């Protein structure tokens, strides 16, 4: 009994980590632009595919390969930054092509949100058109190591996932609360007009925000693909929605909210599955989140229209 509870806790932490990593991207962009970037779930999907191609090249299992063989850890050490950089590039492209022109025209935020939804659909269907409907199976990079203490066990991959999410959270929290660029990010959501008057280039800060958010989605994509090695073009959709809801329940715009909200969702899901048939998972999980939201509409860490991020 106890072992199964602890085993479930680890699973919850792992799923919570995925949700958190993606929710952080939603919350960052929202915290700066007050824009719900509905394409973010699909950036996660693109990140998973990018990681697939990056690792394939690094492992030499693709048409173009490296002239020398790399160890598994080495492949991972290279795949993480490469995936993050390339995924960040996709996020920045979206900002440039789709969101910035609308911002320049000063259009109502609703249109930007609709544009974000369309961008997500374009990413999904673009992928479908380019790579076809067949699923890709992700290669095993890290040799699986199982640590067992007493009667319960933990894999190195799960530890890596959880550790990454915590590390990312701590780094983001420091950036947002302690650095000038983080202050500028918070300032933009409060009063965009005054930001350039401080000598701050707004566009640079916004691009930086998209780089942060998308690179995290890329990292999540890589870790997810390593954990559940089957990729398809629509994999980002449901998980993206869930992470978005996690961010809202945590208090969208607040880094801590996204982190806590992601883990909360992970725990609720695993808990529901431990008691009910798995088909009940999303129904009950979302009902619980709905109750939390109706009790505190601004989310756990949300304050009505003051601190964003």
């Amino acid at each position: 009994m106890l072992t199964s509870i602890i085993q479930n806790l680890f699973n919850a932490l792992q799923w919570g980590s995925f949700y958190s990593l993606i929710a952080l991207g939603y919350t960052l962009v929202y915290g700066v632009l007050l824009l719900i970037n509905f394409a973010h779930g699909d950036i996660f999907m693109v990140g998973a595919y990018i990681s697939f191609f990056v690792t394939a090249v690094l492992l030499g299992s693709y048409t173009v390969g490296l002239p020398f063989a790399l160890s598994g850890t080495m492949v991972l050490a290279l795949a993480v930054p490469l995936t993050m950089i390339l995924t960040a590039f996709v996020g920045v492209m979206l900002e440039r092509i789709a969101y910035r022109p609308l911002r320049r025209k000063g259009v109502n935020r609703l249109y930007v949100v609709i544009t974000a939804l369309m961008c997500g659909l374009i990413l999904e269907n673009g992928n479908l058109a380019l790579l076809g409907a067949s699923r890709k199976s992700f290669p095993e990079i890290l040799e699986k190591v199982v640590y067992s203490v007493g009667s319960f066990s933990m894999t190195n991959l799960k530890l890596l996932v959880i550790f990454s999410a915590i590390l990312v959270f701590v780094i983001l929290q420091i950036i947002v609360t302690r650095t000038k660029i983080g202050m500028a990010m918070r300032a933009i959501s409060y009063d965009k007009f005054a930001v350039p008057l401080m000598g701050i280039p707004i566009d640079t800060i916004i691009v930086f925000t998209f780089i942060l958010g998308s690179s995290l989605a890329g990292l999540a994509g890589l870790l997810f693909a390593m954990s559940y090695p089957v990729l398809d073009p629509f994999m980002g959709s449901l998980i993206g929605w869930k992470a978005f809801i996690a961010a809202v329940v945590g208090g969208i715009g607040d880094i801590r909210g996204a982190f806590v909200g992601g883990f909360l969702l992970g725990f609720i899901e695993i808990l529901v599955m431990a008691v009910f048939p798995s088909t009940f998972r999303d129904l009950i999980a979302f009902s619980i989140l709905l109750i939390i939201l109706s009790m505190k509409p601004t989310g756990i860490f949300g304050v009505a229209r003051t601190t964003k991020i």
Partner: protein
Amino acid sequence: MLLEIKDIHVKYGNIEALHGISFHVNQGEIVALIGANGAGKTTTLHTITRVPPPEGPKVTKGDILYKGKSILPVEAHILVRDYKIALAPEGRHIFGNLTVEENLILATYARKDKAQIKKDYEKVYDLFPKLTERRYQKSETMSGGEQQMLAVGRALMTGSNFIMLDEPSMGLAPLLMYDMFRVLKALNEEGMTILLIEQNAHLALKFAHRAYVLDTGEIVAQGNSVELMNNPDVKKAYLGG
């Protein structure tokens, strides 16, 4: 001439707000812009700061020279970073979700001169002791007058030597208002050039070296403060007889 506005026309959408105004500010001067509500005073300052549309106005004709060079193509943040021109905007526009100190830190975003920044902090806290007390407080929880001090303090923290102030006395109790003007005078004596908008024409003329009177997008009177104070039209329209 430090700043020279030459026959500037600007529009918001299709409506022209300035119909060709010209004026200048010399190094070390205090120049005031006075005029009724809606005359175009704020528009004039926003034109100079290069805040882009939709928030800012669009220049359709004329030129703005700073130290003899046109600043029309310059981006708003570059104007602060490289040209050292600051604006304490109308309505304060402080970052209410940040603390007082964070607001001041943010104003140094583009600066690299660490030693001078440190001196400037001390100076601002010295000029506005209220801000020292409120240092770690979220700035939106301060009173309107305190927020006004922060807006001016923040403009000073950009390290600019030319500063534009849009109704800095707004919301200040009379005593604090005189304090504010004393502070500005002291800064000017240290070499700061000031372009000021002030509703209270008496106060403005007492404080400034020269002034321009704006009326519905045009300059209708100008001169040094003494001349304007004795100008019968100005007296009647802005000084209450």
